[in-house]
């Protein structure tokens, strides 16, 4: 390693974060448990809450994957902001579309 890169490593804005395997193992086990939970929950009659529970479990699983497997928890602020902006745009577009479909026939029946 050259002197230059050693300097840079010392003066860099942040160190490259290495997630230890134990974190991955715990997240992996949690994801499997939530998979079993979501299958089990679909067999219980909860009326309107069935899809809500299914989506909630999906959101929890996706959040775990994004934060730990994809390492966003330890990423730069720029990456975190990018992920947040993407999620926000996605939710804004989906809710505007659904709002249109729900409300376009209002007052016509």
């Amino acid at each position, binding site marked *: 390693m050259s002197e230059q890169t050693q300097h840079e490593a010392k003066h860099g804005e942040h160190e*490259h974060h290495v997630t230890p395997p134990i974190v991955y193992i715990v997240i992996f086990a949690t994801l499997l448990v939530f998979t079993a939970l979501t299958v089990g929950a679909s067999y219980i009659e909860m009326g309107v809450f069935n899809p809500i529970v299914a989506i909630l479990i999906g959101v929890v699983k996706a959040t775990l994957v994004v934060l730990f*497997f994809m390492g966003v928890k330890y990423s730069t602020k720029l990456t975190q902001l*990018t992920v947040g902006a993407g999620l926000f745009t996605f939710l804004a577009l*989906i809710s505007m579309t*659904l709002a249109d479909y729900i409300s376009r026939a209002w007052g016509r029946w």
Partner: protein
Amino acid sequence: MSDSPTIAHDAHEAPHHEHPPYQRHHFETVEQQADATNFAMWLFLLTEIMFFGGLFTAYLIYRNWYYPAFVAASHQLNIFWGTANTAVLISSSFTMAMGVWCAETRRKGGLVLCLVLTFVLGLVFLGIKTIEYSEKIEKHHVPGFHYSLNSFLNPDSDEAAKAAGDKPMPLDMARHTEIYFFLYFAMTGMHALHMIIGIALLGFMIFRAQAGAYTAGHVTFVENFGLYWHFVDIVWIFLFPLLYLISRHAN
């Protein structure tokens, strides 16, 4: 960026300064390069979110319009294979994450093993998907000229529909099961295409990893491929409950 006078001096003295071979000239530091690449990868993933988002939105709208058709059609999916495939895909995400760790800690053997495991699990996923698709083809549940409404008009003649306790549906609602299967094939097909691309890249990476390409301090490619693979996993995490688990409880 450089607060140290030594570095500033170096930069003035030798514009073509020494750097690792994998650092591009237009980046000041390896870290800056890694951050920029990571940012670019996430921008690509955002376009992917928007792409799959369109499919998910279409699904939500049709599901709200034709809910009974969606329930009956979802009963045709095999919950055992669906759950197994979810576990396979989560496992492949885990082996991929471990692969990134092996690259970061410069374990060449471990990295190759993890990439091979991810590759194999990806193939297992596609194999199970093939079993499921062939079931649909046999029952004429592929949208098109040969689409059959039999499972929904005469549920007693269909094992899966009978087991779920489906009642015969009126023709106009039964016809909408075709929309469910259209979305099913569009969404799982697009997901499978992403898996195929990922598996092809993994094959390439296994050879590169054996040559020691990712265990010499430059892990960007493995890391960013990991982001792609985990993204594909997340898509499935939502596809599974939405397509397979709409309403499994007794009617």
